[in-house]
């Protein structure tokens, strides 16, 4: 009897974890250049496991309901949205699998990614590359735009597909603060004049890191001098100034800078509860969503800096060992479609900026884009884009993050 029990139990647990054995399209190279119909046919009835940061119910809903709905209805593909606390977790799974020699039965089919994580995947040979031309909607992407063709300075080289664009912006509560600082120079003064009312998440948090880069640009007297490959001499010079500024600022930070929030969410909580007066985010549309879902006070207002803020593009990547590459390609193509990009741009859905060229889409889609009214609290993306700063190459970013930890964080 005991034997029987074990057998049944094992059988049932294995059934719970059924990997779809059919539609195994691990061999990506054979898909490249194939007619699109053959790819959708190969993907039909399969599944795709998309790993992405799962902390926003709006994004979760857009992905699971809207995108997942299209995949199911039009392509008979099951989308498994796998929520992550940090994108690096997804990269790590692929990394561990590669180390263990798992080359065609990986568990990750797609990751929402950019920056350092992309660099890790590309340099580590963890990405499936060279397929972008195969996607019909690739035509909507302007690969001539260096901000699209380079992910934090690293050439994309067909290893990922853009999804959205974002640009760093601050936000403040109009009910609490009259004149928020409008440049990094003003901010440095403002922090000293308002002790305890400002902080930033500790790098390597994505948003904390980009804030530190703004100070780094300020110390360097502009981003122009920092573009290109990593330059140790330049780094030493600018970083010394940067750590000086940040360390001078530290006693005036929240809790005298003895600790830093661990994540952007922690900073947003501090802001929402008046513990600090300013917040910021690489995704400026988040202010609107946060007001609508009650996380932020309705009197919150987003704004850009006069000396510019850093913009980036984020992408989706397919790991080299994804067993469902056809389905992943279909998913990427759906994400790039004008309809999906327009839906994502609606302020009550997400409100993020499209990564495609709107004027290359159909008239209907263009009409939708034209009709979008941004959330009143969100800074106008066009205004923000006028003062856009480029991202540094990922090697700079790692150096700055490590430098911050050694010189400021500890």
């Amino acid at each position, binding site marked *: *009897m*005991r034997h029987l*029990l*074990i057998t049944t*139990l*094992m059988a*049932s*647990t*294995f059934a*719970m*974890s059924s990997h779809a054995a059919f539609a195994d399209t691990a061999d990506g190279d054979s898909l490249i250049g194939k007619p699109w119909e053959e790819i959708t046919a190969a993907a039909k009835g399969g599944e795709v*496991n998309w*790993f992405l940061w*799962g*902390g*926003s*119910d709006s994004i*979760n*809903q857009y992905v*699971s*309901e809207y995108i*997942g709905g299209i995949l199911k209805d039009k392509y008979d593909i099951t989308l498994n*949205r*796998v*929520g*992550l*606390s940090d994108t690096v*977790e*997804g990269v790590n*799974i692929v990394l*561990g*699998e590669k*180390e*263990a*020699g*798992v080359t065609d*039965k990986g*568990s990750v089919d797609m990751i929402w990614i950019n920056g350092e994580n992309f660099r890790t995947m590309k340099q580590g040979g963890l990405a499936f590359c060279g397929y972008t031309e195969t996607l019909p909607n690739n035509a909507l992407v302007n690969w001539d735009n260096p901000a699209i063709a380079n992910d934090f300075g690293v050439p994309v080289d067909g290893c990922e597909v853009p999804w959205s664009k974002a640009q760093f912006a601050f936000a403040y509560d109009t009910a609490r603060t009259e004149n928020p600082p409008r440049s990094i120079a003003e901010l440095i003064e403002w922090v000293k004049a308002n002790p305890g009312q400002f902080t930033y998440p500790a790098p390597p948090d994505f948003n904390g890191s980009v804030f530190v880069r703004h100070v780094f640009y300020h110390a360097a007297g502009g981003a122009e001098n920092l573009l290109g490959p990593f330059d140790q001499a330049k780094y030493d010079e600018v970083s010394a100034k940067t750590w000086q500024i940040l360390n001078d600022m530290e006693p005036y930070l929240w809790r005298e800078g003895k600790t830093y929030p*661990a*994540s952007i*969410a*922690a900073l*947003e*909580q501090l802001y*929402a*509860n*008046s*513990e600090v007066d300013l917040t910021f985010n690489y995704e400026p549309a988040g202010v609107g969503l946060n007001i609508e*879902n*009650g*996380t*932020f*006070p*309705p009197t919150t207002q987003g704004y850009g800096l006069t000396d510019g803020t850093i913009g980036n593009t984020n992408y989706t990547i397919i790991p080299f060992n994804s067993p469902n590459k056809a389905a992943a390609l279909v998913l990427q193509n759906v994400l790039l479609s004008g309809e999906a990009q327009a839906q994502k741009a609606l302020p009550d859905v997400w409100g993020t900026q499209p990564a495609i060229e709107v004027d290359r889409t159909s008239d209907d889609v263009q009409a939708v884009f034209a009709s979008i009214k941004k959330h009143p609290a969100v800074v106008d993306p066009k205004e923000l884009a006028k003062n856009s700063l480029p991202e540094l190459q990922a090697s700079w970013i790692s150096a700055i993050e490590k430098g911050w930890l050694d010189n400021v964080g500890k």
Partner: protein
Amino acid sequence: MSTRKSLITSNLRVLTGLVLITWLILPLIPLAIWSFARGWFFPDLLPKTWSLNAWNYALSDTAGVLDSLWLTIGISLAATVLSILVGVPAGRALGMYKFKGKEIVELMILAPTIVPGIAVVLGIHSVFIFVGLNNTVPGVILVHLVPTLPYMVLVMSGIFANYDASFEAQARSLGASALKTFWYVTLPAIMPGIIVGGLFAFLVSWSQYILTLLIGGGRVVTLPLLLFNFATSGRNDITGAIGMIYILPGIIILLLTARHLSGRSGAVGGFGQI
């Protein structure tokens, strides 16, 4: 002892009891309130606006909370059943027999209770990647056995130490088969231990975070993972709703087994026998 003094003592008791009660339920209160709140800012003691949004989201198909709930229940039940199947025989051996090397066996089985899970799971993870158990439900169930099994064996060895095997001999001499003897004699006698040990095993598996995170690799999303996700993303309302859903099964199981947990059944006392 004068009555006045005993009155003071008993009032003190009630007072301390009240403090204890408050302290025990206190952390659950803001969680429950948050799940119905929409925008609850400092310094408001209670939310200005109430809403069912968080619950609507948590109970929707997209959120995956309910899928995750069933998955978590499945994993914990499987880990519990396996712990019982494996732990009862081991408990019998340790509780009823004296043998050479018994101390070493006991120490080995108890070791997981004193060596933190993080210390072993990294190594297990490396192995599971090779054998393909990483990112799978069976892999997660297996790794959950590491913390649950010692509890089960501990409780069962306590039970078997006080168990009189001559009842079994009596049953056999009355003509019961080995199986019938187990079913009608042994099982009822050790049932309190199975219930208490099973309850502990279930709860240990139920609240497991780091083992699931690493071995499940994000593909096996149990409730604690989902909860952690939302807790660290600042959505306090959704966090509150998932938190409420997360504690519910434990409470139900407790209500079903509460009488076995009360001190007098003695099964809990097994923990004192290390």
